[in-house]
């Protein structure tokens, strides 16, 4: 705890002197343990005393838990403690039966994750078949996808992106960590290549969303 003795030469604001880093680490630990949901750095900062540096505390904490039964993991912009994946076998009792997704839903989810932000027409272009409303609804309801920004193309169609809950569920730090993403990109398979002339495979109709702005909006 050298930090403890370190002179705090940041001047007059002794009222708001931040707690020593070791103490901040304990605080981050307590808050992350207490919450089932990932906690953002901003929220950590809001809970901790003025002048704290949750980022640095998180880094220390993450190292401390390396190799332990639980880990400090990053989920998008937030952090959480999760059990080590190799110990899953101990948890039959805690296992939650997730609803089995249809093949259409799984493919749609993967296309959204790898191509995001992506319009419905683009999903249809990739799958070569129209995407049923039910599929999108199901993914929205699971909070694995949400609406992104409208695309700046004619009709300004809505786009879909994956959510922090999606990242949390699949143990991903960010969408950049999707398995095989780099290879797919390198192979040009994530490009939205427009079909030459009129291919009859999905997605190049005048954006159906354009006429139906209400389609995915609440």
């Amino acid at each position: 705890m050298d930090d403890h003795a370190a002179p705090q030469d940041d001047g007059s604001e002794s009222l708001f002197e931040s707690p020593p880093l070791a103490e901040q680490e304990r605080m981050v630990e307590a808050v992350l343990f207490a919450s089932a949901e990932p906690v953002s750095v901003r929220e950590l900062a809001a809970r901790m005393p003025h002048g704290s540096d949750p980022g640095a505390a998180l880094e220390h904490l993450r190292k401390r838990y390396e190799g332990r039964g639980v880990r400090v993991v990053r989920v998008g912009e937030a952090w959480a403690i999760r059990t080590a994946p190799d110990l899953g076998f101990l948890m039959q009792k805690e296992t939650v039966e997730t609803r089995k997704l249809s093949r259409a839903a799984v493919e749609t989810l993967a296309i959204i994750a790898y191509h995001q932000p992506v319009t419905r027409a683009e999903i249809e272009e990739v799958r070569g078949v129209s995407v049923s409303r039910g599929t999108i609804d199901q993914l929205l309801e699971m909070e694995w996808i949400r609406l992104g920004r409208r695309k700046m193309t004619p009709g300004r169609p809505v786009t879909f992106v994956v959510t922090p809950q999606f990242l949390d569920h699949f143990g991903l730090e960010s969408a950049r960590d999707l398995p095989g993403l780099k290879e797919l990109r390198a192979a040009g398979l994530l490009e939205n290549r427009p079909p030459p002339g009129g291919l009859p495979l999905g997605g190049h109709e005048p954006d159906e969303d354009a006429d139906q702005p209400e389609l995915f909006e609440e």
Partner: protein
Amino acid sequence: MAENLFEEQELTVEERLAAEALIVDVGGFEGPLDVLLTLSRTQKVDLRQISVLDLARQYLSFVDKAKELRIELAADYLVMAAWLAFLKSRLLLPPDPSDEGPTGDELAAHLAFQLERLQAMRDAAARLMAHDRLGRDFFARGHSENMTRVRSVTYSANLLDLMQGYARIRTRDDFRPFVMDRESVFTMEEALERMRGLLGFTGGWTDILSYLPDGWHSDPVKRRSATASTFAAALQLVKEGRLELRQSASFEPLQLRSCEKES
């Protein structure tokens, strides 16, 4: 493809799901691209080296077979069949130089790209589903602690609110007289009221300026306003027959007295 599929959007979720199930039931395929992808595997080559021509033939015979079996194919399967027949002829016939648009090879290349991309997405989906998953391979905190919430309220308004609020008031003002500096205006109504109250107490002739209300003498603006309104009020009272008004000469003080007192 398939205008009929867009009609789905008018349907209920159940109907839509049923409609989708119908399509899936065509030999368990999910759309024509899925059929093509499955057929392409029979060529046993890398998707990048696939023979689109062979694939077109295979697909067309698949559709013929479905017709023989009297399986009712969804419209998009038939659209695809028509398109592949067209592609086949393009690939087989020498290119017509007068023909515009993409060549058969370009179309074939794009179809191959689509098949490869769909296959890649399927593999990615499978990998994703096999990834460590929350609630299956790793777990969140089972006992989450109560986080008490202390509420504090802040109020907000934006510039638009502000401008609209102001506009709202000023619009209202368009329909009624509005005087901003009313503070230094003594209205005739006010003067009338004041003089009516004082009339009973007047004895003989009194200078009209003595009727100016307190605090309205010094400030010239106020004095002017009060003088004018008091004069106007006096005229009104004369008209009502309750007051007499006289002036001995030009620029001499105006004097008034109550008629009621005399009678």
